[in-house]
């Protein structure tokens, strides 16, 4: 056994019990135990926070922490330190609860003897060590699995690429004329190649989701484009099945606060499912409106006249790898990842996804996304104590590329780096970084709003300038930054004006101010 000195922290308010413990440990003949004793929780917590404790012996009846409260407190301060609780003879229930709350063991007062105590402490430490190890192994295995999946998906692409190349060579008649049947069979092959390709893409997306590497950049965006694009994308395949595909989007639909490419991904998934599961001559309708149950959200509805979903599986379909057993021949094709990916994408944009359905009549899929509101983004900084001389300042960082943008991807990536950096330069609760406010074709513009005075704005822009100058990634990419600020014309708050209204007024002012700046820079608003 490891004979390194074990540092025991004893928390016990009864001097008699504490003395007994000391005697037991001494009796065990173990010079390798070093006991620190405290009679109350607050002192013990102080000691624990300083570190250097291998195991805690905790009495559950302390004056300043009754029962399991003390256990929870210690566990949250030092989750890696094993705890053994001391209970009375008639309190096995509490002891069992303590184990559930993370204690490694319990000892019943009056039944403790020196060797048993020693053994309990050593076992507690050993169990804790094993738990930590198991958790580490689990994490490593998860990471290995992700790496494996990512590797396999990419390796699968090479042979798939060769199949696509040669089948398309045959289909295009580059290797000689084909009989109609041959042509038809090769087209079927080609369709399956595309299916395999999209399965591989889904597989990779899932590994990204699970590794937390999904990149989502929300901005104020209209759902109109995403919906109309999706509809036109599926017009062909719907028409081929004689399905009517239509969309109804109100003219005054407010902007959503979403990543447009991610919303598109969700829509494509849902509409492709609808086309797949709707029989010939059916109907698919897309609608969007302000959500009846929450005016802060927009809801998108995709209604089909397909085979429907049984109520008992309507929740399961959003689980990973779920496939309907009676989905028909078309429904069985696929990995069963599309709805899972959609659920994750919607959730990470602050919405929800669900389905209502009547078997044999059709399904209605719904998902919600937040409505873009400058006022609700800005209002946190307005609720603070505002001094008289303070006003609303808009800080703008212009990002320019010296030698033109290499690629759209690089530009998105660098924008993310810049936005994160700006976020870090500012003070939470006092300043707020706005999402992307325009297309930013010529240059990327980043805006922050602060409630401050001239001096504060000066300090803030100096700090931002300095941080951007120091950021190696941005400098290496050959990017230049211009930081400036300006104040909004004063927007006074009348005595009894509700905060919400005031925030709306300020938001309108900010929007106008930003529009003016963008027009001055020839950026379409």
């Amino acid at each position, binding site marked *: 056994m490891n004979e390194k000195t074990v540092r025991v922290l004893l928390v016990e308010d009864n001097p008699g019990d504490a003395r007994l413990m000391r005697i037991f440990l001494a009796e065990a003949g173990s010079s390798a135990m070093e006991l620190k004793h405290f009679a109350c929780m607050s002192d013990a917590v102080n000691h624990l926070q300083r570190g250097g404790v291998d195991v805690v012996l905790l009495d559950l009846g302390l004056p300043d922490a009754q029962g399991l409260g003390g256990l929870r407190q210690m566990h949250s301060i030092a989750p890696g330190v094993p705890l053994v609780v001391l209970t009375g003879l008639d309190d096995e229930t509490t002891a069992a609860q303590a184990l559930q709350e993370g204690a490694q063991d319990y000892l019943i007062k009056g039944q403790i003897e020196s060797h048993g105590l020693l053994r309990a402490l050593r076992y507690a430490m050993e169990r804790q060590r094993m738990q930590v190890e198991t958790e580490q192994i689990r994490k490593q295995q998860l990471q290995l699995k992700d790496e494996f999946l990512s590797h396999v998906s*990419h390796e699968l692409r090479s042979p798939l*690429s*060769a199949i696509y190349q040669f089948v398309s060579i045959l289909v295009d008649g580059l290797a000689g004329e084909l009989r109609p049947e041959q042509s038809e069979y090769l087209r079927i092959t080609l369709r399956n190649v595309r299916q395999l390709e999209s399965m591989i893409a889904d597989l990779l997306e899932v590994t990204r989701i699970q590794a937390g590497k999904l990149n989502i950049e929300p901005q104020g965006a209209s759902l109109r484009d995403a919906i109309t694009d999706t509809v036109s994308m599926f017009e062909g395949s719907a028409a081929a099945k004689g399905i009517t595909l239509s969309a109804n989007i109100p003219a005054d639909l407010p902007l959503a606060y979403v990543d447009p490419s991610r919303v598109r991904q969700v829509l494509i998934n849902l509409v492709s499912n609808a086309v797949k599961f709707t029989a010939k001559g059916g109907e698919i309708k897309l609608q969007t409106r302000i959500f009846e149950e929450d005016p802060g959200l927009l809801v998108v509805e995709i209604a089909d006249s397909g085979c429907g979903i049984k109520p008992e599986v309507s929740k399961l379909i959003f689980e990973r790898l779920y496939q309907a057993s009676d989905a028909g021949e078309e429904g069985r094709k696929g990995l069963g990842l599309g709805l899972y990916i959609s659920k994750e994408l919607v959730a990470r944009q602050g919405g929800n996804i669900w389905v209502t359905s009547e078997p044999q009549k059709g399904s209605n899929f719904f998902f919600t996304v937040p409505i873009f509101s400058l006022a609700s983004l800005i209002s946190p900084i307005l609720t603070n104590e505002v001094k008289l001389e303070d006003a609303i300042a808009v800080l703008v960082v212009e990002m320019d590329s010296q030698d033109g*943008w290499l*690629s*759209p991807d690089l530009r998105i990536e660098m924008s993310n780096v810049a936005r994160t950096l700006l976020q870090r330069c500012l003070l939470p609760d006092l300043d707020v970084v706005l999402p992307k406010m325009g297309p930013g*074709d010529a240059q990327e513009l980043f805006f922050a709003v602060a409630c401050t005075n001239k001096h504060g704005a000066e300090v803030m822009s100096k700090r931002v300038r300095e941080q951007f100058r120091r950021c190696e990634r941005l400098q290496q990419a050959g990017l230049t930054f211009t930081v400036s600020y300006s104040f909004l014309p004063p927007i006074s708050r009348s005595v009894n004006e509700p905060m919400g209204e005031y925030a709306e007024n300020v938001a309108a002012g900010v929007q106008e101010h930003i529009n003016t700046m963008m027009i001055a820079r020839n950026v379409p608003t």
Partner: protein
Amino acid sequence: MSNKTILIVDDDPDVRLGLNIRLKANHYNVIFAADGMASLAEARKHMPDLIILDLGLPAGDGFSVMERLKANDTLALIPVIVMSARDPSANRERALKAGAKAFLQKPVDNAKLLAVIRKALGEKDLTPHLVHDLGEV
């Protein structure tokens, strides 16, 4: 009608054969190399108008090939399209930084491939919506 010369660098003979048929059908001259070293030798010898380059190659991977091309004043002028099965999120930016005109992930749609080739060669392009991968704004 183009009779420009394209150098295909890929260690997979199936990819070389498939691209050969496809590109010849579109009136390009096609030459080949199966590894990094050979690609530089072929480029020097024939001065192709365009190089289609795989990333995972024996005797010098795609990135080192681009580095060597860049180091030579004449070869540096040849446009390069990277075509690889690798993860774009980890390789696209790196390839573009190394000087590639575009990063295409295999399998590449034929229409898109041809559009990107035409754009890189500065030829008239009738399908601009297919070339956003070319990375020029």
